[in-house]
C-alpha cells in the first residue's frame, strides 16, 4: 500500500513538472512572438529617418549619425588630461551607443588629429566594432615616414588600434564620396594637392552629409585661411541646412564670407568648459546678425537632429535655463 501511495505521489509530481515545463514553453513562445512584433513595429517606425546626435562631450566634437541600420561617427570627443581608460569615449560616447543599442559603426570620420576629436574614437575601437576609419589624406606622408610617425603619438595609436581591431583605414581627399543606403558623405577638403599643414586645425576635413535632400556640413576645426580657400573654390550653389560651427565657435573661424556663402539655416556649436574663450562672443554676435539660430551643447546637452522627407527637427536633451 505504501509503495502504491508513493508511486501515485510520484506520478502526480511528474505530471505537475510536465505541466510546468509546458507552461514555461508556452510563455517563451509568447515572449518571442511579442518581441518579434515589437521589433517589426519599431523598425518600421524608425526606418527612413536620419538622426544626428551631437553629443555633449565637453570641449570637443562627437556626432553620431544613424540611418536605417547604418551608423556613422564624426569625431569622438576626448580630453587630454583624463585617464586613458576613462576618457570621453568610455564614459560618454560608449554609454550613448549602448543606450541606442549600436554595436557597429560603418565609418568613423576623424576630422583632424587633436585630442578633443580623436581620443574618443581610439577608446571606442576597443568596445565597438568600427568597420572603417576615415582620415584626411594629408596624414599619409606622416604614416609613411617612421620618424615623423613616432612624433605623432595619436596617429600611431590610431594605426595600432585599427590594426588590432581589424578596422580599415581610409584616406579621404576632396571629391571622395562614401555612399550608404539613401545617404552619402562627401569630402570637400583637403584637396588632393593640399600638403600637411603645421597648423593642425587646418588639416581638418570638411564633410558634407546629404540625406533626404538636406545638406549638413561638418567643418572640424578649420580656420579662416581654409574658409577663404573654400569660398574661392566654391562649394555648391545651394545653401546648407545645418552647420557644425568650426573650431567650437572660435573667433579664428566662422568668417563673414564663409557664412555668406553657406547661408546655414541652423548652427551647432560643440563646446564645453575651456580656457580658450570658446565660443567667442564676436562669433555668436555674427551668427545673430545673420539670423542663424545657434545651439550650444554646453547649454542644451546632447542635440538631436531628426531629418525625414518632410522636415528637419531639432530636439535637445536639456532645456536651456
Amino acid at each position, binding site marked *: 500500500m505504501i509503495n502504491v501511495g508513493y508511486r501515485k505521489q510520484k506520478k502526480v509530481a511528474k505530471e505537475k*513538472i510536465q505541466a510546468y515545463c509546458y507552461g514555461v514553453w508556452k510563455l*517563451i513562445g509568447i515572449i518571442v512572438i511579442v518581441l518579434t512584433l515589437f521589433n517589426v513595429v519599431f523598425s518600421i517606425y524608425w526606418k527612413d529617418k536620419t538622426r544626428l546626435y551631437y553629443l555633449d562631450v565637453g570641449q570637443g566634437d562627437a556626432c553620431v549619425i544613424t540611418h536605417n541600420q547604418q551608423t556613422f561617427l564624426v569625431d569622438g570627443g576626448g580630453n587630454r*588630461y583624463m585617464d586613458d581608460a576613462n576618457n570621453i569615449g568610455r564614459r560618454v560616447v560608449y554609454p550613448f551607443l*549602448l543606450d541606442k543599442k549600436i554595436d557597429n559603426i560603418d565609418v568613423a570620420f576623424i576630422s583632424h588629429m587633436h585630442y578633443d576629436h580623436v581620443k574618443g574614437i581610439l577608446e571606442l575601437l576597443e568596445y565597438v566594432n568600427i568597420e572603417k576609419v576615415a582620415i584626411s589624406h594629408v596624414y599619409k606622408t606622416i604614416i609613411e615616414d617612421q620618424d615623423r610617425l613616432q612624433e605623432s603619438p595619436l596617429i600611431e595609436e590610431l594605426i595600432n588600434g585599427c590594426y588590432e581591431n581589424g578596422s580599415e583605414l581610409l584616406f579621404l581627399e576632396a571629391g571622395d564620396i562614401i555612399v550608404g543606403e539613401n545617404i552619402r558623405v562627401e569630402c570637400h577638403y583637403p584637396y588632393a594637392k593640399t600638403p600637411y599643414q603645421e597648423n593642425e586645425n587646418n588639416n581638418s576635413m570638411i564633410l558634407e552629409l546629404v540625406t533626404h535632400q538636406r545638406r549638413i556640413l561638418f567643418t572640424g576645426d578649420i580656420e579662416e585661411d581654409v574658409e577663404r580657400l573654400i569660398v574661392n573654390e566654391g562649394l555648391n550653389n545651394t545653401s546648407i541646412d545645418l552647420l557644425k560651427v568650426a573650431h567650437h565657435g572660435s573667433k579664428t573661424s566662422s568668417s563673414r564670407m564663409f557664412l555668406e556663402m553657406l547661408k546655414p539655416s541652423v548652427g551647432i556649436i560643440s563646446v564645453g568648459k575651456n580656457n580658450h574663450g570658446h565660443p567667442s562672443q564676436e562669433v555668436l554676435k555674427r551668427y545673430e546678425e545673420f539670423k542663424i539660430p545657434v545651439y550650444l551643447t554646453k547649454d542644451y546637452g*546632447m542635440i538631436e537632429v531628426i531629418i525625414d522627407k518632410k522636415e528637419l527637427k531639432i530636439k535637445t*536633451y536639456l532645456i536651456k535655463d
Partner: protein
Amino acid sequence: MSFQGLLLILCIYSISNYTFSYFQVLDFLEARDSKDVLTLDIDIKEVRQTEYGYQCYFKVAKVTSQSQLVGYTGYVYIKEYELNQLLNHSKLSEFKYLAHRYRITGQFEKNWYPKNPGQIHPLIYLLGQRSFGKFEYDNIELMTNDQVEAKQFFSVFQQKNAQYRQRIREKVDKQLSVCFRQIEYGLLKAMILGDKTTVDQDLLTRYSRSGLSHILAISGLHIMIFIGCLEYIFRFFQWPRNFRFRMTFSISIAYLWLLGFIISAIRAMGMGLILIFTIAYDKVYVRDRILYLIICSFLIIFPNALFSISFLLSFGAVFGLFYLYPILRKKYYHFRENVLLYFMFDSLNISLSILLVTFPILLYFFKGISLSGFIVNVLVIAVVPLFYISSIISVFASFIHPLLGRFLAGTATIISSYILSVMLVLDFDFGFLNYGALSLQYIVVYYSGLITYVVFQHVKREEND
C-alpha cells in the same frame, strides 16, 4: 536554523542596510550641495600635473560641520606656486606634499547632471566610487603637527589595521619571491594575494586568450582548495568536527582580512564555509539550498551583481557542476574501472558542463567564444589544486629555511611550465570564434530549454531510483 529563517534575517539586514544607506546618501547630497562654505582637513593621495594646475586627489580626514563626508575622496586643483609656497619647496617632484595634511575652505562644484542619453549620472558614479568630485577652494593652508595629532580613534584603528595587513602581505610576498621564478611569482601573487600587478602583461594577455583568466583571480576553485586543505589537515589531527569547523572558519576569516574582504573571495568563502558548517553540525547536506541561499543573499546585499559578469559566470559554473555534470557522468560511468580513461572523461565533463551553462553569457558579453580555451581548461584545471597546494607548502617551508622553500617549489615550477606549454601549444589564431552579440531572446530560449532538460532528467532519475 532553517533556510527560510536565514533568508528572513538577510532580508531584514538588507532592508535596514538600504534604509541606512539611503539616509546616508541624502545626508551626503545635502552636505555636498549645501551652500555652506566647508572646511575640510585632507590627506593628499596622488597628484597629477594638468594645464589647470596640480590635480590633487585627496581623502577627507575631518570636516568642520558635515561628518558624512569623512572618508570620501575627491580632487582639487591647486596652483603650483601655492603648493610651493605652502611647502617651501622649489621642486615638487620630491613628493613631499603627500606627507602633510592640509586644511581647505571652499565649496563643491555644482551642476552635476548627465547631458547625454545613456550617460551614468555623475553623482551616482561618484558615490559608487566614494568620491564627491571636484572641490573649489578659496583658501588652503598647511596644518601643523599639533593639529594633525588630534585624530579620531577610528581612523587610527583603520590605519593600524591597514598597516598590519600590508606588513603580512609584504612578508608573504617576500617569501614568494624567495621561492619562485618571476613567472610563478606573479602567478602565485595573483592566486594567493589577489594582486595581479606583477604578472607580466604579455602573460596576462595569453591567459586571457586561453580562457584561463579565472586561474589568476581568487575564485571558488582556489577557496575550495584552501578550505579543503584545512579540513584535511584538521582531520589528520582527528579533531572533533565542531572544533574543525571553528578553526576553518577563523582561518578563513583571517585569510579574507588578508585579502581585504574582496567580494569574489567573500562569495566563494561563504559557499565553502556553509558547506563545512552543514557537515560539522550534522545538518542535512542540502547542496541546492546552500547554493540558492548564497545567490539570494548575494543578490539582496548586492543587487547589481545580477549584471556582473563574474557573478553570472561563477554561479553558472556551479550550476553546471551541480546539475549537468551528474547527468553527463552517466554516459561514461561504466568506464570507472579504467582509472585513466575515467579521469580523462571526468576532466572533459567538468569543462563541458561549465561551458554548456556559461557560453550564452560569454557570447552575450564577449561576442565570441574561445574554443581553444575549452581544451586548455580541460588540460589545466586538473593540475591547479596540486600547483596551489605545493606552492603554499613551499611558502611555509621557506619560513623555516629559504633553501627548503626553493627545493619544494620545484613541483610548482614544473606544473607552471606545463600550464605555460599547454597555453603556448594551443594558442591558435582561429581559437576564438567571433559570433557577434547574442540576442537576449535566444539566451532566454536556451536557458529555458536547458532547465527543462535538467528537470526532465532529474524526474527520470528519481523514477529509476
